């Protein structure tokens, strides 16, 4: 059986909030290493991969591998009933047909309990190889969110061009064009506001802004976001969490650069 207690319900809340608009149903794969999730959007051009390591829970107990097939909208409905600071406990049998969620508020001595019906989801797992990316950009997640939002007003797609001393987000649409250029800098007071750029070779790739905007819903999970780019492989957008990560992969647009 599975029993996992999360100190703060908001972690799961934010994860589900971030991916529920990308995928509707997915399996939460629970094993002794933690809870993992891998799912593609309906068009199969983007992939989300999430891991909440067992370290992030206290206690964490999972006797055998369990796949929890959940409709993310349903899960979100239940999670909305939890306050951000609540203790959240997930429980499931070995062959579960429902997932039990327990929210405990230490301040108010309030305990709420919910069960979500599970579903059988036939999902294929993709093996994602470790990749050496040509460019790795770390920037404040709020900054990335702002760039995506601003540029999506003009165009459907954005080109991300990384050179050795700057990264340029550029787009052009019917009403005009625009670009944002960032240079690496270090904020000594707040590490989270620094911009870092590691480059082995210059890259220039184009991506769908709608998808990037969607990924940015995870911004609240982490103060920084890491973008990894290489020619002819999907863009990796990674938000690090305490004992895990939330990664999005997006296929580049090839051929028709607008």
């Amino acid at each position, binding site marked *: 059986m599975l029993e996992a207690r999360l100190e703060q319900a908001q972690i799961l809340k934010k994860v589900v909030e971030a991916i*529920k*608009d*990308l*995928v*509707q149903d997915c399996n939460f*794969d629970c094993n002794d290493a933690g809870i993992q999730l891998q799912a*593609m*959007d*309906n*068009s*199969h*051009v*983007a*992939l989300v991969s999430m891991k909440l390591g067992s370290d992030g829970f206290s206690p964490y107990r999972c006797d055998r*591998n369990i796949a929890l097939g959940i*409709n993310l*909208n349903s899960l979100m409905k239940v999670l909305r009933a939890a306050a951000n600071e609540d203790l959240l406990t997930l429980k499931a049998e070995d062959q579960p047909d429902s997932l039990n969620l327990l929210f405990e508020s230490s301040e108010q001595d309030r305990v709420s309990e919910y069960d979500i019906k599970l579903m059988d989801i036939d999902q*294929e*797992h*993709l*093996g*994602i*190889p470790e990749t050496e990316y040509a460019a790795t950009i770390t920037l404040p997640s709020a900054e990335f969110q702002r760039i995506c939002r601003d540029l999506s007003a003009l165009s*459907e797609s954005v080109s991300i061009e990384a050179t050795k001393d700057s990264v340029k987000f550029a787009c052009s649409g019917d009403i005009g064009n625009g670009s944002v250029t960032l240079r690496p800098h270090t904020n000594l007071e707040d590490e989270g506001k620094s911009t870092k750029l590691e480059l082995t070779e210059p890259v220039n790739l184009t991506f*769908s802004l*709608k*998808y990037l905007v*969607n990924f940015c819903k995870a911004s609240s999970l982490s103060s920084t976001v890491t973008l990894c780019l290489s020619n002819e*492989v*999907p863009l990796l957008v990674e938000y690090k969490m305490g004992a895990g990560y939330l990664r999005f*992969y*997006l*296929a*580049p*647009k*090839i*051929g*028709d650069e607008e």
Partner: protein
Amino acid sequence: MATATPRVFILPATTSSTSDSSKAGTSTAEHSILTFNHPATDVPTRYLIHHPSSPSSSSTSSTKDSSNNNSNNSNDGGAFIYEILKVANPAHSPRSWLIAPDSAPLSLNPQSQSQSQSEPQNQKTTPEKEQPNPSEKEDDKSSLIIKDAHLYLTTPLDPLYLLLPHLSSPKTSRNFLSLDDLLESHPQSAQWNTIFSLHPNSQRLLRTRLLLVCDTVSTGGEDDDDEKMYRINEDKLYKLLISRVEAVAKALPGSITTYITKKLSKPIGTQVSTAWKRQSESTKTNTKSGGIINDSHLENDDEEGEGEDPQEDPAVDSQLRREASKLNLQDTPAAAEGQEGKGEDETMIIEDEITTTSHLPPPEIQYLSHLSHSLQFLQPYLPASISTTLSTKLFTLHPQEPLEKYLEELKALKAAANAALDFSMSHSKRTLEDLEAGGGGTSKENMERERKRKKKEEDAKKSTAVKKLEKVDTKGMMKMTAFFKKKDAK
């Protein structure tokens, strides 16, 4: 295969005709395993040779019960080669053998107990020595567990099948050859010699088998078997084979015949809508009651029971029609009028004959189907060329057209019944008017509607954001599966 693993065999009975096992000492038979090339596949295959043994050697007995013993005893006269069939232990339900001596009467009458026969798989021709001393046996292996619960059945095999590929090969089929020459040129002549040395009667038996399929020429005296020369006669061969197929077809076990009958039975087409009824009926009555009788009468006179066809089929028809009308699924009257009248007449005439079995296939159809099934039992023993010729010869003797026609008809009936069932299930609330409005293409329209409904339901589950994202232009973007390979299911 580990050579040391014990195996469980069901062996042919010993030749002692007395089933009184207290006289076990008189049983005089032994078993050896020889390898022959399989007649159809040419793969070396092991066969069991059942032969009398010298009285001094100890008896071998098998794990099977005496009822099997008796049934085999009757065959003992002719059979000396046995096929080894492996009844495998299915992987999905693993089993094991527990073999233990039947302890209570052991001390009194040791040899009468049925006991395990463990048989090393290495190929050998010497008889196995088994338990001359009961106490020793008990010490050795008082009980035993075998991990793989495979069961090896030995069933009598006509030695002709082993000889057939050789007999019919171009080298030997042209000339008359004596048995010795014939076997000498056989690829496994050594094995045949072993058999003859083990089983004195086998040569005589083999000659009688050969007589069935061969022309003979005698060089010496009339009675001198040794001087007889053999040459295969194809007519005789196929006559024999066909008679076997027919015999098997008539004696198929109940479990198989019920299965076949079930497969061939017409669906109990109560839900069949009249719309469909009328369509198929007009085509059916024309093709069927015409087609079958003509074929059978022209092509084959000795088919019995074929004459019953015209009665049988309309009976089925009218049964369906009657039930359809019972359901009050009457269509627009204008179109139905003509057919209805005709149908009514027929219904009146044969009403008495209608029984509950009217959806069963007619007997001659069943027989044809049994024939083709029994052919499948025989074919694995025949070389490919003989097997194909056999099937063509068999089917010229017993034309398959009625069966094919029947199957086609059955397919149509089943499809219609399924469609009608789907229809009635998904539209149970709909009224008669809807049915009529649906008309001929009901099932198709129905499916379309169903599909749309499902899509809508699915859409309703999606959040607006997911729906929006679906509309994003993904032109030029490759699927994730193009980058990441599928992992094996965890």
